[in-house]
């Protein structure tokens, strides 16, 4: 092969590989992004059907209940305007607490409850997940209240 042909082959090969990788990345990104949706938006029917998404808000006081098996848990996530019932099977993270912020990933069930595959709480007791803070903020703005939950708990990097 001549040098010019070699170069062309190299460049062609590289472009082909890049193309494949770009397709892969875009495809993976497209099917693995989870949107954050606030309880208010879920109540308004804006949640995707059959696709996982994330909700954020506060765990409603007094709403946490266990089923007989001891590891299936039901609780209510609220943005102070709307509530959504969440079912989760498993061990809750240490920072999960009534009245505190929470983020859960999962899908809507036909019964209109949220079936969580994952419940997230971050590394610090003072930390409010920004998604939870935003959901509550937005709901309260809509209700014309001027108390921001972020004034109750300063977000801070904890690592």
């Amino acid at each position, binding site marked *: 092969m001549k040098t010019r042909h070699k170069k062309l082959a*190299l460049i062609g090969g590289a472009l082909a590989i890049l193309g494949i*990788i770009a397709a*892969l990345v875009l495809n993976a990104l497209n099917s*693995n992004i989870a949107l*954050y949706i606030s309880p208010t938006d879920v109540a308004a029917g804006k949640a995707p059907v059959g696709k996982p998404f994330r909700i954020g808000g506060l765990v409603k006081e007094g709403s946490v209940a266990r089923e007989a*098996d001891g*590891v299936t848990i039901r609780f209510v996530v609220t943005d102070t305007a709307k509530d959504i019932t969440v079912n989760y099977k498993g061990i*809750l993270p240490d920072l999960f607490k009534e009245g505190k912020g929470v983020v859960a990933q999962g899908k809507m069930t036909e019964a209109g409850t949220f079936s969580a595959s994952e419940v997230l709480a971050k590394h*610090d007791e003072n930390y409010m997940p920004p*998604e939870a803070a935003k959901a509550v903020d937005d709901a309260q703005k809509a209700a014309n209240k001027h108390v921001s939950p972020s004034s109750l708990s300063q977000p801070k990097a904890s690592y």
Partner: protein
Amino acid sequence: MIPELGHFALILSTLVALVLGTLPLIGAHTNRLAWVALARPAATAMALLVTFSFACLTQAFVANDFSVVYVAQHSNSLLPIQYRVAGVWGGHEGSLLLWILMLTWWAFLVAMLSRQLPEAMVARVLGTLGLVGFGFLLFILLTSNPFERLLPAAAEGRDLNPLLQDPGLVIHPPLLYMGYVGFSVAFAFAIAALLSGKLDAAWARWSRPWTMAAWIFLTLGIAMGSWWAYYELGWGGWWFWDPVENASFMPWLIGTALIHSLAVTEKRGSFKNWTVLLAIAAFSLSLLGTFLVRSGVLTSVHAFATDPRRGIFILIFLVAVIGSSLALFAARAPKVGLGGRFGLVSRESLLLTNNVLLVVACGTVLLGTLYPLLIDALGVGKISVGPPYFNAVFVPVMTPILFLMGVGPFARWKDASIPEIAKAVKWALLVGILVAVALPLLYGQWFAMTALGLLLAAWIVATAALNFIERVQHTRAGRGFLAAALSQPRTFVGMHLAHIGIAVFVVGVTMVGSYQDEKDIKLAPGQSVDVAGYHFTFNGVKAVEGPNYVAAQGEFDLAVDGKFVRKMNPEKRNYHSSAMPMTEAAIDAGFLRDVYVSLGEPIDRDKPEGEWAVRVYYKPFVDWIWGGCILMSLGGLIAMLDRRYRVRARAAAPVSAGTQQA
């Protein structure tokens, strides 16, 4: 008084850094020997001053000086001494000081171990490090002074985040920072080479051991962090594709590409521009990681609003470093020349492919990490990019890298022949296929992905062994096999050991991903649960008291085939100073598997002596993940100690040679 001394030393060191970052660089450019000679003493002074300052902060922690804001926020008089010392880097200000401390130590080491380098080169390298140090010292003084006083003093400190009260905190951040910051040396060498216009094999040879050292620390630091997350967070995972983790993984990927590309530059004189770019990229990504973690953008974009100065300062610094080094690169690169030519199939082309794939892998991680931030910043909505994305892109990109890792060492420089390589490696492929078919069946279930992982791992080990044997046979020259094997160059031995480390790592990831088993279950005292043949009997929970916490300690009997193995004691701790409970898992570690128990919550909060929600795991080969990382680092260490890096280079070139173009 002592905190003021520490503060003062920090200010002095900033001035010294400014001197180091200017005069030696100008001196090297204008051939002023006196200014060039300033570099070593200035680097030493900077290291001493920062070390002193760091010691002052440590003293404030050890002596419980709660009149210092930072100490009051991150320590407590009940905190055990080792965590008071490690607490120095348990928060933003102190960890930044640790970053700077590491930087000045690296600069000091370069100053000490560079006797064989031309003086102008040393001046440029140290000058560059001085500039970087100056930027960070300015950052800490202007936005994050750890010595700030609290008046009146607090009676008691707020305590260290309980999550950080672990031996992991003592080791993980220093290792990781040594790695992050270590790439500043590779960066400084690249900048120095660009400034002098002498991008040659000698530059690559000087750069290699330093780059390798940084890479070793980064590898160990990341592995340590992963292990810590595994046993401390109580979730049993070893990698979460968390943005903070990604921030450390990106420089690792580029650093890995860099050590391979440096090898080509040293041996063949090719890839010079590419190598320089990688050196710049590795350090820039270290800075980006610092920026992401430290500015608060990762926890929340709104953290910018809480302390905008910090984020903006690092951002400006980041832009200045990347911008100026790329500008310098653009000005010099066209004059660099191409170096040795190579064929379509050659060791060079294989290493180039490895490099491109590693950079692509880094790009996909960068995309997945920054995309949610970008979407949020644009105000389009909030999204999260989870582990499935990373797994989906990572496997296809890594598979060819792992395959080529077996081929590369057989390929000749310049021009290699595919049939020759194929002939040399065919037995390795056979071994790989056998393992891939047989081992999953042994574990009961055959999955295609499991087979692929095991195939690649066995392939790497088998090719490494074949390559090693082949080379020993070629270099025997009448000696016994063992004698010849022991006299192989350390770079060669180190390379294969590190590659085998990758294989071990891949086995761990594959096996734990395929065959791990977990159960979340409610257990009353006396009840038991079985996971993967391991029988756990719950004996109940009792209260125990630690130095600064009370814990509910569970007791489990672990039995296999009806035979008692050991007791396991997971804990749920409540630290006095914090409302946050902490899960301490109990782990029975083994060569082929870990079993892991952690306590969830009592089913009835008022009856901790009753039923508990419990999580039990069976994790086959999980320790191979970190074992593989240790092997990689060990391989790196052996390669770094190769004799040829210690041979003195020819007598220092006169300073004026530095300004010529190569």
